[in-house]
């Protein structure tokens, strides 16, 4: 109750003006709080009242002036209350809600119109509170408290900062800089180990350290604290002059220490091999420091945007431009290009671009890591730090590498010289990043998350044509491609998702700009081996006999995995080539289904290939290509069905495996159907020149495949299987799609299939989750409309809809149901009523005649009359339907609860 009401903003009507704008009322609330603040329960309530008052807006304010007065008064009251007291734990969240409400609700021009001195006191107070809550939040973490009140309060305040500083119209430049410096410093301090910071220090200064077990379900810090980091990164940009050099020196200093520490460990190992009693506390502290510094740097230097090209933050660009006259470009490049050396050992290192130097500090961390690996110290390294490094490099590369100068009004000379198009710098960095990727994939194959972040970096390098063009000039890239194609160690130790993404990257790289000969050579080395090896295996005479041999099975599995990766690389401009390439395989895969019919894990993977191809490509395919795919899918399903019909299994994993097959088949069907919603192929443009127009003789339609698939799935479905929530949702999603898209096909279904479909709908409406129930209700409307169109009063569908009328009637009138469902239920209900008017009247009559109480009888009778008054006689007309839905809402409000409480 308290939780949910916390965020409701106060927007009373004008009639409250005299009461709420009376300053004595507000003062009363502050006074009350001062009196009771030591009682934690009461304090929370009174702060809740104040937070409400802090969100006051709307018609209650006659003009801007009154709003300014109110705000000034409120802030004064607030400062008087907080200043000079020690805040109680129970007050933290309440106070931060008040501040957050003030900043979000009051417009900037009102905020800046209050007296200057008052406003700066307010911002000072906000700064002070943010830093202090941050420190308390860190303490809470050390003590591992269940209830993290300061963390919550800190989150709210950091969010308020983000709202406040993102406005550069009302505050002059640099207005918040000093405050930003303070908040930024305190954040860094809380996250660094002593002596620079206070991490893991309890209130009395004792360090605590616990090695706890962390499961994969625990979110990475960069996600768990993404909101905090985004705010701190933003504040860091505002105070770039201070923050960028600070991060650089903290990082550089730690790199040197890390290097020294590792070197000592190595000497120890060499002096007495086998004595592995090394205390890792020092290293762990360094790793944790570097971890946080990299995260903050990543959020400070770049944004993470989904899909669109992220831009270099304007503050960073300005900062670099501002200093570019003092910068020596050559030394800057040298700092960047020599990650194996201490920055301070390079003459003139202080006259370098600070942003580039910060990047190069992280490259230095990366370099120490790489060298430790080469010196056989991998076991001492932190995979978390490795992950942070590639995460940062990916984020950085997306934004800065090969900057597109057209996107900016002004570009910093150091940036364009170091990372611009056609520069040695960008070529060098790409080589360096590629090197890192290759090293990581070989050394860290056992660390799935790290390997995954690493291939994501690789994808970033090739997903944009400009970068890919440089990548493919590196010899390493070709080596990587060849090595992966040969399926030899170490790349084949990678987990299957990582291998798929690697395949995706290699395919994307193939669409870079190359001369025809090079391109030919590339595909010969990347894709052709796949095809050749596959064909060599499956075309052997005795393939049937040896298909169960382990080497053969591994070969097949690796090929199928690679196909999934290739499908993932689909983009609008390569779909033509990739589709044709994959289609050849799909045909062969159907043969494999036959050969491996008794090997469920292979069958499962084959279906997955189809799911992926359909998922990634169907929306781009023109009519005739789509038909090819439909046909292939249909054959696949036929073979699957033939092989599973009459098969009985008792092995222990039978149920699980069948469940997975069904889930994949439903996914496949849903993907095929999705073309009805999302279709980018209004012409066969992407395939132009690849095929003659022959769409006229359409042999297979999506409907055929899908209905065939449903035919196949339905007999295999059981109520037990529907207990798997994922399967259940996927199943109902699929049948609702079908009813919506092809209602005309439903009456033509074979009797058994039709019956089980109707039974499924009934089951979904009566005994599944409300989400499923909603899906089923949505399926009813098109079915009833179909009946109305067909005008057959004796068809099975007509009879079925009559039954559904009663179900929906009971549901609306007699049962408790989720109000969110009223709309879906109402639409279905109305269409069904139109179709079965007589039966509807009968239902109403029966219900009324069973009422003993004349009052209730009358109320119900009136309500039913009103319900249909606007739509008599009911017809399938949109206007009437809307009127009915409106009346239904009133009906529900009026008598909804009357009959269901029994």
């Amino acid at each position, binding site marked *: 109750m308290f939780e949910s009401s916390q965020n409701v903003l106060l927007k009373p009507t004008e009639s409250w003006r005299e009461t709420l704008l009376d300053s004595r009322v507000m003062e009363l609330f502050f006074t009350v709080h001062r009196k009771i603040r030591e009682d934690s329960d009461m304090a929370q309530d009174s702060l809740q009242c104040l937070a409400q008052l802090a969100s006051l807006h709307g018609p209650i304010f006659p003009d801007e002036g009154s709003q300014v007065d109110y705000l000034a008064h409120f802030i004064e009251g607030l400062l008087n209350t907080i200043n000079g007291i020690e805040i109680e734990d129970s007050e933290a969240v309440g106070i931060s809600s008040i501040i957050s409400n003030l900043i979000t609700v009051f417009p900037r021009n009102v905020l800046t119109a209050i007296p200057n001195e008052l406003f700066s006191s307010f911002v000072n107070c906000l700064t002070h509170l943010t830093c202090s809550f941050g420190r308390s939040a860190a303490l809470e973490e050390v003590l591992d408290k269940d209830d993290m009140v300061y963390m919550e309060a800190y989150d709210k305040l950091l969010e308020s900062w983000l709202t406040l500083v993102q406005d550069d119209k009302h505050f002059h430049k640099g207005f918040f800089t000093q405050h930003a410096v303070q908040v930024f410093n305190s954040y860094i301090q809380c996250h660094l180990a002593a002596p620079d910071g206070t991490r893991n220090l309890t209130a009395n200064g004792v360090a605590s350290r616990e090695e706890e077990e962390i499961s994969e379900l625990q979110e990475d810090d960069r996600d768990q604290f993404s909101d905090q980091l985004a705010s701190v990164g933003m504040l860091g940009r505002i105070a770039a002059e201070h923050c960028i050099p600070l991060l650089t020196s903290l990082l550089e200093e730690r790199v040197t220490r890390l290097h020294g520490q590792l070197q000592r460990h190595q000497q120890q190992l060499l002096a007495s091999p086998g004595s592995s009693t090394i205390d890792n506390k020092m290293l762990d502290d360094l790793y944790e420091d570097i971890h946080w510094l990299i995260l903050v740097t990543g959020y400070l230097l770049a944004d993470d945007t989904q899909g669109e090209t992220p831009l270099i933050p304007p503050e960073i660009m300005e900062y670099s431009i501002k200093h570019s006259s003092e910068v020596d470009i050559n030394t800057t490049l040298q700092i960047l290009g020599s990650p194996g050396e201490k920055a301070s050992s390079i003459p003139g290192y202080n006259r370098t671009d600070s942003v580039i130097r910060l990047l190069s500090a992280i490259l230095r961390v990366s370099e120490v890591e790489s060298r430790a690996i080469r010196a056989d110290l991998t076991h001492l390294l932190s995979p978390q730090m490795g992950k942070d490094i590639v995460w940062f490099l990916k984020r950085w590369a997306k934004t800065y590498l090969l900057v597109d100068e057209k996107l900016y009004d002004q570009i910093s000379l150091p940036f364009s010289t170091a990372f611009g198009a056609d520069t040695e710098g960008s070529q060098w960095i790409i080589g360096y990043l590629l090197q890192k990727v290759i090293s990581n994939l070989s050394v860290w194959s056992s660390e799935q998350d790290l390997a995954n972040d690493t291939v994501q970096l690789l994808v970033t390098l090739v997903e944009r044509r400009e970068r890919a063009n440089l990548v493919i000039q590196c010899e390493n890239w070709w080596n990587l491609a060849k090595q992966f194609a040969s399926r030899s160690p170490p790349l084949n130790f990678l987990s299957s998702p990582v291998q798929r993404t690697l395949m995706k990257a290699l395919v994307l790289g193939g669409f870079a700009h190359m001369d025809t000969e090079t391109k030919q050579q590339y595909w010969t080395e990347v894709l052709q081996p796949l095809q050749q090896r596959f064909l060599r295996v499956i075309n052997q005479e005795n393939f049937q006999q040896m298909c169960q041999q382990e080497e053969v099975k591994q070969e097949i599995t690796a090929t199928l995995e690679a196909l999934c990766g290739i499908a993932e690389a689909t983009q609008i401009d390569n779909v033509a080539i990739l589709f044709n390439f994959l289609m050849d395989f799909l045909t062969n895969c159907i043969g494999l289904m036959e050969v491996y019919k008794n090997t469920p894990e292979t069958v499962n993977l084959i279906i997955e290939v189809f799911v992926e191809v359909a998922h990634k490509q169907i929306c781009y395919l023109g009519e005739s290509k789509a038909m090819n795919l439909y046909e292939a899918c249909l054959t696949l399903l036929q073979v699957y069905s033939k092989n599973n019909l009459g098969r009985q299994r008792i092995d*222990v994993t039978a149920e699980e495996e069948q469940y997975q097959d069904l889930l994949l088949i439903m996914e496949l069907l849903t993907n095929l159907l999705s073309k009805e919603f999302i279709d980018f192929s209004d012409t066969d443009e992407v395939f132009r020149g690849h095929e003659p127009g022959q769409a006229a003789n359409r042999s297979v339609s999506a409907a055929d495949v899908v209905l065939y698939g449903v035919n196949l799935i339905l007999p295999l479905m059981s109520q037990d299987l529907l207990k798997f929530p994922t399967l259940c949702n996927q199943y109902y999603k699929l049948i609702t799609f079908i009813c919506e898209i092809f209602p005309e096909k439903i009456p033509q279904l074979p009797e058994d299939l039709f019956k089980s479909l109707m039974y499924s709908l009934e089951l979904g409406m009566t005994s599944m989750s409300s989400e499923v129930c909603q899906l089923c209700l949505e399926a009813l409307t098109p079915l009833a409309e179909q009946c109305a169109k067909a005008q057959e009063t004796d068809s099975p569908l007509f009879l079925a809809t009559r039954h559904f009328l009663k179900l929906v009637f009971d549901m609306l009138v007699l049962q408790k149901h989720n109000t969110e469902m009223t709309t879906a239920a109402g639409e279905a209900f109305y269409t069904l009523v139109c179709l079965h008017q007589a039966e509807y009247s009968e239902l109403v009559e029966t219900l009324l005649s069973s009422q003993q109480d004349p009052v209730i009888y009358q109320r119900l009778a009136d309500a039913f009359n009103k319900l249909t008054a606007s739509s008599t006689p009911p017809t399938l007309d949109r206007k009437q339907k809307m009127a009915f839905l409106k009346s239904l809402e009133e009906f529900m409000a009026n008598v909804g609860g009357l009959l269901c409480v029994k």
Partner: protein
Amino acid sequence: MHPGKSGRAFQERLGSWVLFGNQDRGVWQGDHFGNNFAFSPLACCKCMLLESKPLKMADDLDFETGDAGASATFPMQCSALRKNGFVVLKGRPCKIVEMSTSKTGKHGHAKVHLVGIDIFTGKKYEDICPSTHNMDVPNIKRNDFQLIGIQDGYLSLLQDSGEVREDLRLPEGDLGKEIEQKYDCGEEILITVLSAMTEEAAVAIKAMAK
């Protein structure tokens, strides 16, 4: 343009920060980002490999040989195991039904937690090991044979070679009854035999296509 030939700024300085300066470890020594930047990653990777795996290189695969002498298991790095795949747990061939990772402390190395069910007995086994470790993976085979007789609780199965094997027990439970019943009715059925690590069992039946 080749990175090795790029501007002097990138290659001028050598060695002021030679890490882990032990002269006899030649692999990394002195490879700065100058001319030898483009050293082969593979040469480097190989030295970092978890020492020689007895896996055959793909090109050496010999598909012609039969499986005489094929071992019952082969090693695989934990991280490359797949859910739905197989693994030997406590000496038993298992299907992996759950695979998750954890680490000790934020900077620890990954450990893999495996849950598998014995493909013959259905018993559940668990194991936890560092993700760099090799696990044994059982060679799993499934073969379909035509049922041509049942004698004293043993199945007579027709092999592809034309020979008949009679060493496989009629399974217990429902599947066994089903097989007997179908056989008595004269239905022609195929029996899927699952084998792994010297153990075998009939696990499925299917009516033969007419």
